């Protein structure tokens, strides 16, 4: 497909990078953009202003399958998208990065539709929602919901004194409706089996029904007599993301502190929040101590500066904050931060770029979610009609793959070894990235190339 991207910073470059292998990408950048940034990209470059129809025509939007405007200026993106659509681009996607136009994606979508724009992406809004989703589940390091919330997935640390640590899995068991799909000790990822004995500090990803997960989270992962996690959080950085996170937590009844460095921004957000807004630097240890940040169970570092977020997070960890969620915008930092011990790292761009890529990349139409930075993924696979009914225990998957849920006639089955996979089922399969093709072949018993055509 011919894709045209208009942008002026790393968002555009990352998007181009993600798409350039499969598609013919044209990148429209401003005249003054230095070449250095563009060296690595295998794309056609057009320089000029996208608000002019000339440049857009030169970039070939007339027969582009997709036009994406992702510059830092929201208004410019809106105009460019409207113009591209007028010139004949089949699909146009508009990034709204500063949120001055609309504050939520739902609102922004209705505005965009009235302008003829097919979809909008609010990276900060996405990031904020992603963070909120994680924070709201006590102790969670990652969460995902599938099939309209009927299947939930949670990643959590196994706490000291938790029931799960009392013996190997075959003795401890798991509640009905829950499957442990992945374990993690230090940096090693493994599939839990009957002999696995979890230790405190391990991380576990479990998938299951809401009721099962609630049982599992409270009875198996938390210490027997542990109090519930208090609904208090510190948000460092009161920008668009920080504000949205603070607002979301506050609306859910949390007590929130927001630390923001810029005094004018403080004055802007303070009237719109019930939270205590503190004017100061998140890396000021004195301030963190003074405000007893260490006593809050959650800290969310979402300034626009990766290094600062890291420093804040490390200070908070040292102060005793149990759960820390850190924003990293530079792609390299996401992995780096986890290496130095940050539990949850999220990036504004990551989510937004993935959203676009997933929409474009039909090969990944069955990809539902990614974890551990794409190392493991959740696929939805359809078992062909002629598939013989086979109990899961006998289904010898060739790769790191585990069936987390079976969808049959609108029902959700969280399977145990004795449950059968039958023809016509849909499976939610948890699989390592390198095993995706093999998993598809195994479960769908068809060649991926054919699947591609069929869809």
């Amino acid at each position, binding site marked *: 497909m011919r894709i045209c991207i208009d942008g002026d910073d790393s968002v555009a470059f990352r998007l181009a990078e993600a798409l350039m292998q499969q598609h013919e990408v044209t990148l429209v950048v401003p005249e003054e953009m230095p070449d250095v940034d563009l060296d690595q990209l295998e794309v056609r470059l057009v320089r000029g202003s996208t608000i002019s129809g000339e440049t857009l025509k030169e970039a070939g939007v007339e027969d582009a399958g997709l036009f994406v405007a992702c510059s830092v200026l929201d208004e410019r993106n809106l105009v460019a998208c409207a113009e591209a659509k007028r010139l004949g681009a089949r699909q146009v996607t508009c990034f709204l990065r500063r949120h001055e136009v609309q504050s939520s994606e739902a609102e922004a979508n209705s505005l965009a539709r009235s302008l003829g724009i097919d979809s909008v992406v609010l990276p900060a809004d996405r990031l904020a929602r992603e963070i909120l989703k994680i924070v709201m589940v006590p102790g969670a390091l990652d969460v995902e919901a599938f099939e309209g919330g009927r299947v939930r997935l949670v990643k959590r640390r196994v706490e000291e004194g938790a029931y799960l640590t009392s013996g190997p899995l075959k003795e401890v068991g798991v509640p009905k409706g829950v499957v442990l799909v992945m374990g993690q000790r230090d940096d090693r990822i493994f599939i839990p089996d009957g002999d696995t004995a979890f230790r405190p500090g391990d991380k576990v990803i479990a998938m299951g029904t809401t009721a099962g997960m609630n049982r599992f989270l409270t009875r198996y992962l938390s210490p027997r007599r542990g109090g519930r996690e208090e609904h208090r959080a510190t948000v460092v950085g009161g920008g668009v993301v920080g504000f949205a996170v603070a607002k979301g937590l506050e609306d859910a009844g949390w007590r929130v502190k927001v630390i923001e460095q810029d*005094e004018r921004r*403080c*004055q802007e957000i*303070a*009237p719109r929040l019930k939270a*205590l*807004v*503190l*004017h*100061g630097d998140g890396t000021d240890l004195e*301030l963190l101590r*003074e*405000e007893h940040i260490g006593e809050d169970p959650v800290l969310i570092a979402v300034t626009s500066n990766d290094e600062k977020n890291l420093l804040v997070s490390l200070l908070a960890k040292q102060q005793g904050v149990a759960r820390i969620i850190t924003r990293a915008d530079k792609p390299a930092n996401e992995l780096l931060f986890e290496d130095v011990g940050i539990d949850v790292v999220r990036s504004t761009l990551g989510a937004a770029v993935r959203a676009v890529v997933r929409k474009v990349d039909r090969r990944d139409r069955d990809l539902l979610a990614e974890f551990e930075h794409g190392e493991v993924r959740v696929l939805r696979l359809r078992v062909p009609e002629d598939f013989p009914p086979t109990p899961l225990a006998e289904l010898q998957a060739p790769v790191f793959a585990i069936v987390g849920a079976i969808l049959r006639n609108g029902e959700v089955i969280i399977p145990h070894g004795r449950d059968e996979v039958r023809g016509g089922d849909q499976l939610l399969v948890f699989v390592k990235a390198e095993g995706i093709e093999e998993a598809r072949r195994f479960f769908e018993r068809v060649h991926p190339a054919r699947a591609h055509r069929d869809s």
Partner: protein
Amino acid sequence: MRLGLVLGVLGKILRLFSLAFVPPTLLALADAWRGFTPWDHALPFVGAGLATAATGYLLSRWFHPNPRLHRAEALGVVAGAWFLVACFAAVPYVAEGLSAVDALFESISGLTTTGATILTDFGAYDRAFFLWRSMTQWFGGLGVIALFVVILPELGIAGRQIFFAEASDAGHELVSPRLRDIARRLWLLYLGLTVAEVLALTTLAGMPLYDSVCHALTTMPAGGFSPHPASIAGYDNPTAEWILVVFMTLAGMSFPLLWIALFRDPRALGRDGEFRFYLGTMLVTGVGAAAVLAGGVPDLEGLRTGLFQTASLISSTGYASTDWVLEPWTDAARTFLLVAMLVGGCAGSAAGGAKAVRHLLMLKFVGRELSRSLHPHGVLLVRYKGKPVTDDGLRAILNVVLLFLITYALVGAFLVVRGADFVTGFSASLACVGNIGPGFGAVGPMANFAELDVPSKVVLTLGMWAGRLELVTVLALLHPDVLRRLRWGARREV
């Protein structure tokens, strides 16, 4: 300040006010026709009415009543109007034999809706006299509502712009965007409530029509004059007391809020921080006083007594259904009344004092400063109705509260120096400057202010006048910048 313009506008106001003398004249004539009183009892009202009309006519003819007034001139009109109207309203009192100082005290007490009286022998006066006395309060209230809801917020004085701010941008239009409409509707509400109270008192409580009218005229402006020397206690009518509790509570509420609650959205009451504060204080102090008096859980009668006094004092009405200066009232119980007096009614009513909203914001301000000592880096806001109050607004509001406190103290000190005891002096100061009416000690609800000496009465008269205009309005006129620019201004070309 161009005095000519101010006098011209005052002339117009006087011309209008002269009509107020018609009802008592008619009543005096009717009573004379029925043979209750001699015919000459109508004369003071006829004479005062004619004098007022003539003065008003001359002033507005001599001086150009230019409606485009500067700020200081507008304040001059406001302050001048109350004083000048009070002077003419005092004429019938003088005709009845009161001294000039006493007459002005009674007249100002009426027009400022205070309700403090210097009358000692209520039997010496006729029905027209008491009707007039009640009417001065009703007209005072009418003026207060126009002044505080329409004129002063427009001028941005004393932080008033904040109180009704919700209206304009929350989708709940205050009443109407046009000032003239606001005034007209609030006056209709005021009139409607007065009529409703007359009906309730006559039909439900069986109070005579004349007494009902007199009380209704002094309830809605939160005034407190009663034609009975023992105030409401003299009627010994529990139903009437409950009705008055309701109407006094209404009188102390913000009329714009009342309008919105009645005609737009009743839930606005729950959202209004000032109303919650006002009603909460009233209930807590009322029940508290009753509990202290009963020495435990009060019965219904005890509750009625407690709530009646606190509703009366917090709304600055000043009726009494009991003499709280005497046994079985104790200082412990009276303290609850004092709290009610200090908190006061809502902005947007005819209640006096610094108003509940300013005290509420003062408390929030104090709370903020306390949390600032815990969170020195916090960006801490004082919110009112969910919106932050600007520091400018807060400053203006605190300034008014401080001015009131200083004035209470100074006037009280003056009275004590002139020979009153501590309780009498300071409570008389609070009762007059706060436009409440009765105080404690020698100026309790069944007593009067006649025993005070002349300088004390003069100071209290000025206190009522300045207090009614929330002090700032009057004191601003004494600022050198205003006094230096005093001139006659444009005379009308004849």
